[in-house]
């Protein structure tokens, strides 16, 4: 009951009705005071947004069209950085590596997250324990420590190598192989499936039980129930996870840097986009080129975000009367 009351109060028509009344009693000075209070409370964020986000974005767009090594003044070069970039085989390699990482790693991670969430959602004893244990890798996965552990586990003669040899695959340690080292990173991101899993689990808990009971009475099997009830009901959560995980994995840096022992190799095998950006900007002092690279990354992320938001009309179901 109490929840319903607050809901009505927050809804738009009620607010519209309440506002003239407020204006009548408080008058204009009250409103001005509210504006002032709002901006005073917001002032740290506004300063941060202008100085650390908006300003740098404009500056980086400008640097992208200049030759700039941090010590001399930036020299305008037009689209040179971009044409150089598109012709650069290492840039192409970094795009390929990152695309592979995103396209293979993100779906695997989300599938595992959804699968384990479905398993845990069956509300058996020990659910909280498993949930916590599966979540733990998400907290430590980005650390240098885990990078070292990964490097060790995937070395020649270590446990992964021995297991695959035992199974009949003679690949050797993934860390030392130009073809396989990227999958070492993919394994590391998939290992951190706990964070999206927790979000899936919370979404699954919100699906009304009556829907399943009704479907079961109609004779729908588990697969039908998953496809026709679970999936549409958790589609907003799925969308959220796809969006955040994709954007996130475009920006992988630390793990690639540590697992490949700062070289992003062998043979540029883990030269993810940000590793190359770091090398160009901070090792070669090519701030203009690195800025151009950063803007290409921004465009790619913006494009993926736009496509996802456009596609959600087709597959994401938001319940209008929910909450």
């Amino acid at each position, binding site marked *: 009951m109490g929840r319903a009351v607050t809901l009505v109060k927050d809804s738009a028509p009620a607010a519209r009705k309440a506002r003239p009344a407020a204006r009548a009693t408080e008058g204009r000075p009250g409103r001005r005071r509210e504006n002032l209070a709002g901006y005073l409370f917001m002032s740290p964020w506004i*300063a941060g947004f202008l100085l650390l*986000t908006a300003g740098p974005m404009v500056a980086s767009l400008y640097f992208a069209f200049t030759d700039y090594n941090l010590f001399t003044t930036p020299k305008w070069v037009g689209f040179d950085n971009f044409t150089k970039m598109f012709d650069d085989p290492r840039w192409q390699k970094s795009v390929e590596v990152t695309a592979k990482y995103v396209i293979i790693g993100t779906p695997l991670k989300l599938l595992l997250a959804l699968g384990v969430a479905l398993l845990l959602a069956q509300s058996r004893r020990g659910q909280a324990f498993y949930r916590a244990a599966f979540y733990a890798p998400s907290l430590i996965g980005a650390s240098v420590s885990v990078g070292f552990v990964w490097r060790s586990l995937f070395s020649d003669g270590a446990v992964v190598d021995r297991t695959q040899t035992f199974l009949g695959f003679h690949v050797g340690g993934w860390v030392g192989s130009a073809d396989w080292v990227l999958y070492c990173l993919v394994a590391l991101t998939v290992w951190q499936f706990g964070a999206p899993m927790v979000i899936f689990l*919370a979404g699954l808990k919100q699906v009304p039980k009556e829907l399943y009971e009704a479907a079961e009475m109609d004779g729908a099997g588990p697969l039908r129930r998953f496809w026709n009830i679970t999936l549409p009901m958790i589609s907003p959560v799925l969308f*959220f996870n796809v969006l955040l995980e994709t954007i996130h994995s475009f920006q992988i840096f630390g793990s690639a840097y540590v697992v490949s022992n700062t070289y992003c190799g062998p043979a540029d095998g883990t030269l993810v986009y940000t590793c190359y950006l770091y090398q160009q900007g901070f090792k070669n002092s090519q701030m203009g080129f690195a800025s151009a690279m950063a803007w290409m990354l921004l465009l790619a992320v913006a494009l993926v975000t736009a496509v996802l938001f456009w596609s959600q009309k087709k597959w994401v179901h938001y319940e209008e009367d929910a909450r």
Partner: protein
Amino acid sequence: MSATTGKPLSGGPGRKRTGSLVWHLGALLILAVILYPVVWVVGASFKPGKDIINSLTLFPSHPILSNFKGLADGIADIRIWTFFQNSLFYALGAVAGVLISCSLTAYAFARIRFAGRNLLFSLMIGTLLLPYHVLLIPQYVMFQKLGWINSYAPLLVGKYLATEAFFVFLMVQFMRNLPRELDEAARLDGCGHLRIYWSIVLPLCRPALITSAIFTFINAWNDFMGPLIYLNEPGKYTVSLGLMMFRDSDGVAANYGGMIAMSLVALLPVLLFFLAFQRYLIDGMATSGLKG
């Protein structure tokens, strides 16, 4: 599987028990794979350096302590404790900044009706999706001009200016769900926004504040790129950078045992925080997706 148990009642307790058994077996199997690396690093830190990669037993039959004892000597004339002090300073500084600046911003978004609020809120959400790397180079240039390189200022300033949009968002969601009657009553008593923020909203927001504080601490503790770019004097290194000093240039650490022991010690604060506060972390994570 359940068909082979031969119980007459298909929906009876026998079937339920097998189902439960299969479920637990499945979950434990995944758990074993997932936690293997964590268990491995604990075992490996008690092995001599040359055995770490090649021995397949998780725990050595003759555990040694020399890897940990070696840490007491420090590395390259720097005491290990220095890295921990630096990381602690960075992480606690970040926590204080995030708690103050994000809660003030969230209060304005959730509780004050001011012109332009919706526009600013959209901008804030937009920064959540913005790749940090676009800001990396101009920020570096700016901090370099300010003479802030090789200090913690570039790492911390954003935390005090509410650039961590995720936490602002988390707190806004929490504050919006607090009953409005509370502020209305306080206003009738003549309280201004500052009083309402400090004495009513903040105490009620404790769960959201705790979640934000722990996530901030862990993120700062694990942060690698920030310190890598801004700190260049080993005495100022955080634990992440200190760990990197254990690796050798050709990738085979001269002191492999020390590197693994240090890795474990570096993980401990995060793991302890997790054990103590896992409920706050997981619930905070879960709500971020539901209301998004």
